[in-house]
């Protein structure tokens, strides 16, 4: 419970950074929006309309108050509330992120277990070479590559857009592969360490088969660092979805933000950045909670 309460100051910090990014960084958004040759009167009018002519601390308070009420202002290019635009696109990003996570787990667990059960063996070397190869192919390269092979050459899967399950496959693989390799490496490390522990030997000497020892005692204990890592890498999953959405024309938050940047629609950019950053903070907190559920030692320490 107090984990969730601890969320508040971090969320406030993140909101403050978002505000500072838009309002304190040199470069005038109004001039950028209207162009270098805009009339001074137009610039002043725009500033007033956006409330940029008020003292900074009042803008900041208005901004925080707006967030608290769920009011993120109005998009300049779409003439709609920023909150509604984000709410419309958010499910698509969430769907992509979960699909990417699923792909990552499906790839990572077999690789990590094969490598971790026999560290130093041939299977380990093979799995880990595969992992470092995967980590080095960023979304940016993997996406177009998959499109060339599976959409254009083999014509098995649709090229872009959101629709049924078939639309989800390529973006999910693009997004999940890098994460998969990171998890696989961590799982291998952690599993190899756990399997060398005394209690595994005890379990084996009591007559438990090797497979059962690995699954019942090894894997469970090896999971804790993997879960921490998942929380930390959630940021990568979210920001990776920005690139993936652009590549596959996926109608999510990332593409909304990039088009808002292109249109110099600052209220919308601000809203999207905030939505991404808050999602990251929430995921991290959630990971901490799950962490406690998996490892009773941590729960005990907190009491």
């Amino acid at each position, binding site marked *: 419970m107090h984990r969730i309460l601890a969320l508040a100051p*971090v969320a406030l*910090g*993140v909101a403050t*950074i*978002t505000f500072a*990014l*838009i309002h304190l*960084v*040199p*470069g005038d*958004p109004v001039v*950028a929006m209207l162009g270098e040759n805009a009339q001074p009167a137009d610039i002043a009018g725009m500033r007033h309309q956006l409330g940029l002519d008020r003292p900074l601390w009042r803008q900041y308070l208005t901004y925080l108050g707006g967030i608290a009420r769920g009011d993120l202002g109005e998009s300049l290019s779409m003439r709609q509330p920023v909150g509604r635009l984000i709410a419309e696109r958010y499910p698509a990003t969430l769907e992509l992120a979960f699909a990417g996570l699923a792909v990552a787990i499906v790839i990572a667990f077999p690789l990590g277990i094969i490598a971790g059960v026999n560290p*130093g063996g041939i299977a380990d*070397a093979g799995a*880990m*070479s595969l992992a*470092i*190869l995967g*980590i*080095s*192919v*960023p*979304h*940016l*390269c993997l996406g*177009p*590559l998959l*499109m*060339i092979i599976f959409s*254009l050459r083999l014509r098995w899967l649709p090229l872009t857009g959101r629709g049924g399950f078939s639309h989800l496959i390529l973006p999910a693989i693009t997004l999940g592969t890098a994460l998969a390799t990171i998890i696989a490496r961590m799982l291998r490390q952690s599993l190899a360490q756990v399997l060398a522990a005394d209690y595994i030997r005890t379990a084996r000497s009591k007559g438990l088969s090797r497979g059962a020892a690995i699954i019942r005692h090894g894997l469970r204990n090896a999971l804790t660092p993997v879960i921490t890592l998942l929380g930390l890498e959630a*940021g*990568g999953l*979210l*920001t990776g979805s*920005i*690139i993936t959405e*652009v*590549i596959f024309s996926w109608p999510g938050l990332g593409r909304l*933000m*990039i088009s808002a*940047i*292109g249109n110099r629609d600052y209220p919308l*950019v601000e809203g999207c*950045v905030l939505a*991404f*950053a808050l999602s*990251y*903070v929430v995921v*991290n907190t959630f990971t901490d909670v799950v962490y406690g559920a998996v490892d009773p030692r941590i729960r005990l320490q907190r009491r």
Partner: protein
Amino acid sequence: MIQRVSLHVGGTLVAVLFLAAIGGPFVVHADPLAVDLAQTLAPPSPQHWLGCDSLGRDMLARILSGARLSLGVSISVVLLAVITGSLVGGAAAIAGGRIDSLVMRGVDIVLAFPGFLLALALAAILGPGLVDLLIALTAMGWTGYARLVRGELLSLREREYVAAARSLGARRARILFRHLLPGIAGPVVVQASFGIGGIIVAEAALSFLGLGARPPTPSWGNMLDAGRQFLLVAPHVTAAPGIAIGLAVLGFNLLGDGLAGRIGRR
């Protein structure tokens, strides 16, 4: 064993990358900006080893030119990030007490913000351009080094050899520069090697989104973006920069992995 192989393969890839970036223009004489509409989307041939892009510009020359940009940007950014991070982390560790916890709290809040999102937002507001790109990417990278340097300093300070130097009457500056900094260098170099790979990807991603190097300046990211429209007719225009990014990142990751094994910590 794996790490020895990593070190060699990674080192070789990185060396080839540097050679190509520096020596490339002396070997490939084509101008990366020269438009030749007769060669639009030409496939690879003896004249143009990697073919031509939609404006008939030689892809190989553009990839080599992009390598110079990519390496230049990523190395500058990592240097800037290491310097900023070391100054902040080092100052926090040396000051200690309340200043330390205040500074590190600040670092934690920046870390609570996904790195690439920070760079993306900064690049969007600063506008496209090389200096702005450097600032945006450095803002994303320095926090990791601040944490690393602070942690290493705090743990090294308690080591016996440092206590010995202190009891021999060495001044603080001497302890810092002779005894502490050499101990920190190893882990920082390992992290920097992974860091360069990460920055190469981030730079390519920003340029891909139109927020980094601006066309016609060839960058692997904006070449990838330009090639997307021609995926069906000329996949080589997309594949070439994609493979270049992959190999460069692979090189630095393997090098980092190998160095980690050599230096003995991770």
